[in-house]
């Protein structure tokens, strides 16, 4: 009798193990690194193999299957065995792999952050690349030298632990778009100062700017979340990560300065006069889009691309508000870091680095981001390019991009070619072309506020603790002032005092220290 129970358990176990054999366990990263070919190669020559981890684009596209990677691997006779990571688990998986010792030789398009690179690099888990770049990657070296870009890929200990990705340098904050159709309809001109902006927004509200006879349906300023986009129009460029401005080498924390007082005063006035969407702090992006696409009621809004808020039909009514002056607009540098890292398990990185160097030239950049002419994209007589749809790479733009390029989801090891930005055919996507035009136009006014900030680990800890707390506090205060719950004039001093009490000076010391050190490295 007792045997029956145990025998059933055993039977169950057998069934389960047979099921398991059906899905045979694949090994975690194989540890090949030498020149000799792996067991599955049939090529007579030696084939190099590497193990790598890469993000799975759009939940479906393996980097390995993409056209550029297939072309390269064939040409260089290198086989990279990819393990794909879902984008939702990127950072957890990365850290898990690196901390448990279970990591592959290469991390490609895995979203590695600079603090991780410093951490793992200093432990020797990631190897320094600067000499290898100079030795095996002439394209990249040339580009880095010409653009003085080495500083941007250095970690705090002076080493390079990850290759860069370069795309267009655009605004550091969210772009702010204003409805030019309404402006022209009312006979106004584009505002060039905060006061003029106020007048325009007021006119939107009072003068039936959308011309439909209803003077009450216009919303001059509609956004969701925090109105940080306006930080670009306060007279000085502000860095979006630290909220600092730089004057003569000295950093100051904007949320406790007069600049911020002006900012709050301006927004509070707008809100009190009903010029701002009153549910701006509570509605979601989707709701904002629903409102904006239904009707022509937004006078201005903030978004990465205005067609995301008002739909593709109306997006060219808007333009990015031109910065009020030179040097007041903060832009990024267009460089993404950590897109390609090499671990200490890789004993022969030279060849694979040389292979990826292909993507760091103009032609290589085209291969990386557009694919192959005649297969994934075509060029017309004006030199403009567009995607080839309906061919063997896919029916829609996403499919073609997913199958034919290595772009998407995260930054990758390539230089975005000029042609991508400047010569995209309106046939491909007129709204994208328009967006890029606007981006380029406003970026011309821009400056980069901070150099690549090389935090020591100690400073990073300090910053993480204080910056989170302080940001929560000044955001709370901002909302209270704008909605009128607190009166700005009478509570400002108390607010500044509280921020200082929370440890602002320690935070600023860390920032200043890091800034001085980083500027010197330039």
């Amino acid at each position: 009798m007792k045997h029956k129970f145990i025998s059933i358990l055993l039977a169950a176990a057998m069934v389960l193990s047979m099921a398991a054999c059906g899905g045979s366990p694949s090994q975690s990263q194989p540890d090949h690194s030498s020149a000799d070919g792996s067991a599955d190669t049939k090529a007579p020559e030696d084939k190099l193999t590497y193990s790598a981890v890469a993000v799975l684009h759009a939940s479906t596209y393996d980097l390995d299957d993409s056209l550029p990677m297939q072309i390269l691997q064939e040409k260089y006779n290198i086989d990279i065995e990819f393990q794909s990571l879902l984008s939702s688990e990127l950072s957890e998986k990365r850290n898990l792999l690196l901390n448990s010792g279970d990591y592959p030789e290469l991390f490609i398009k895995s979203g590695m952050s600079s603090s991780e690179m410093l951490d793992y690099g200093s432990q020797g888990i990631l190897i320094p690349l600067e000499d290898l770049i100079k030795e095996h990657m002439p394209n990249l070296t040339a580009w880095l030298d010409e653009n003085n870009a080495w500083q941007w890929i250095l970690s705090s200990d002076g080493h390079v632990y990850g290759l860069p990705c370069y795309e267009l340098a655009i605004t550091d904050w969210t772009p702010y778009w204003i409805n030019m159709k309404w402006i022209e309809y009312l006979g106004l001109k584009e505002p060039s100062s905060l006061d003029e902006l106020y007048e325009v927004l007021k006119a939107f509200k009072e003068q039936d700017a959308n011309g439909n006879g209803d003077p009450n349906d216009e919303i001059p300023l509609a956004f969701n979340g925090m109105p940080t986009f306006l930080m670009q129009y306060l007279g000085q460029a502000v860095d979006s990560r630290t909220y600092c401005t730089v004057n003569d080498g000295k950093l100051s924390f904007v949320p406790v300065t007069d600049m911020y007082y002006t900012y709050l005063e301006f927004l509070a006035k707008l809100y009190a006069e009903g010029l701002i969407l009153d549910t701006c702090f509570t509605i979601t992006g989707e709701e904002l889009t629903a409102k904006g696409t239904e009707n022509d009621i937004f006078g201005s809004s903030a978004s990465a691309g205005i067609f995301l808020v008002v739909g593709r039909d109306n997006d060219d009514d808007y333009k990015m508000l031109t910065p009020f002056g030179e040097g007041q607009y903060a832009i990024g540098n267009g460089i993404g870091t950590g897109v390609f890292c090499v671990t200490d398990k890789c004993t022969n990185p030279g060849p694979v680095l040389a292979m990826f160097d292909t993507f760091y030239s103009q032609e290589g950049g085209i291969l990386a981001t557009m694919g192959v002419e005649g297969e994934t994209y075509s060029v017309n007589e004006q030199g403009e390019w567009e995607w080839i749809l309906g061919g063997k790479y896919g029916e829609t733009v996403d499919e073609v991009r997913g199958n034919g390029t290595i772009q998407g989801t995260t930054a990758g090891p390539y230089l975005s070619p000029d042609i991508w930005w400047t010569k995209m055919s309106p046939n491909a996507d007129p709204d994208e072309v328009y967006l890029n035009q606007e981006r380029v136009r406003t970026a011309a006014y821009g400056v980069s506020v901070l150099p690549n900030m090389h935090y020591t680990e100690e400073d990073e800890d300090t910053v993480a603790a204080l910056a989170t707390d302080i940001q929560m506090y000044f955001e709370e205060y901002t909302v209270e002032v704008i909605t009128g719950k607190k009166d700005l004039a009478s509570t400002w001093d108390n607010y500044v005092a509280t921020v200082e009490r929370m440890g602002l000076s320690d935070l600023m010391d860390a920032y200043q220290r890091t800034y001085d050190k980083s500027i010197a490295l330039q």
Partner: protein
Amino acid sequence: MNRRNHSDTIFDTANVIIMCVLLLIFIWPLWFVVAASFSDPNELWMGNVVLLPKGFTLEAYEKLLEYSDIWVGYKNSILYTAAGTLVNLAATVALAYPLSRKDFMPRNLIMMMLIVTMYFSGGLIPTYLVVKNLGMVNTFWAMIIPGAISTYNVIVTRTYFSNSIPAELHNAAKIDGANNLQFLWKIVLPLSKPILAVIGLYYAVGHWNDYYTALIYLYDKKLFPLTCFLKNMIIDASLSMEGSFGVSATEMEKMIRLSQSLKYSTIIISVIPLLIIYPFIQKFFVKGVMIGSIKG
């Protein structure tokens, strides 16, 4: 007689009314999810969808079914749930039954041991290393063994055994010459159908909805359960918004729209199997299971 009838009638009527109200409160939002999965996302946010879908579209389902990997995910989920639940039940009962016996000496010690693990855990990395050293990473077993026992469920099962299996029953069986295993198999388990059904349901649902275990231990797309794909599709969009690298505006827009429409259809798709199974389980929650087992 009158008093009892009167009081009970009021109770019954109130009960029915309350249950009907509850029925509405539950059904309407559920119906909403179904309607939403067929609606245009913009209409949703404008508040136009109340009973019927607005801007009727099959887009959400089309998009979902375009991902051929979904079917692999479905198959995997079913496999993990079925196999996993079997293992769970066997392991949990094997542990819970002895703990419910007052004459089992180490019971409190073992119980303490279990409870400590509910609160103190080594964390992700050490656990991952253990699984890796056992050779289970990126295999089917990783979805079954590391999560084989849930302390919470052991406690629930043990409590049930303690209450529903009286000592007299055990004594009677002992007199008849049965040993512990026979008693467990022939008497305890049949009497425990309700709790087995509940625990089985808890474990099964846990497996079905689990994406975290797969996240950590699996790399091979062919092994992912359904939830990984579904969750990923929805999160992909928010990621594209944050980092604008390598993401063209069209891609951004597509992803956002996709995640909106997918949100509801993914629920429907992943819930259907569970809704189908539940009525079978419901049979176990029947009154009077214990009838006749104890006399005097």
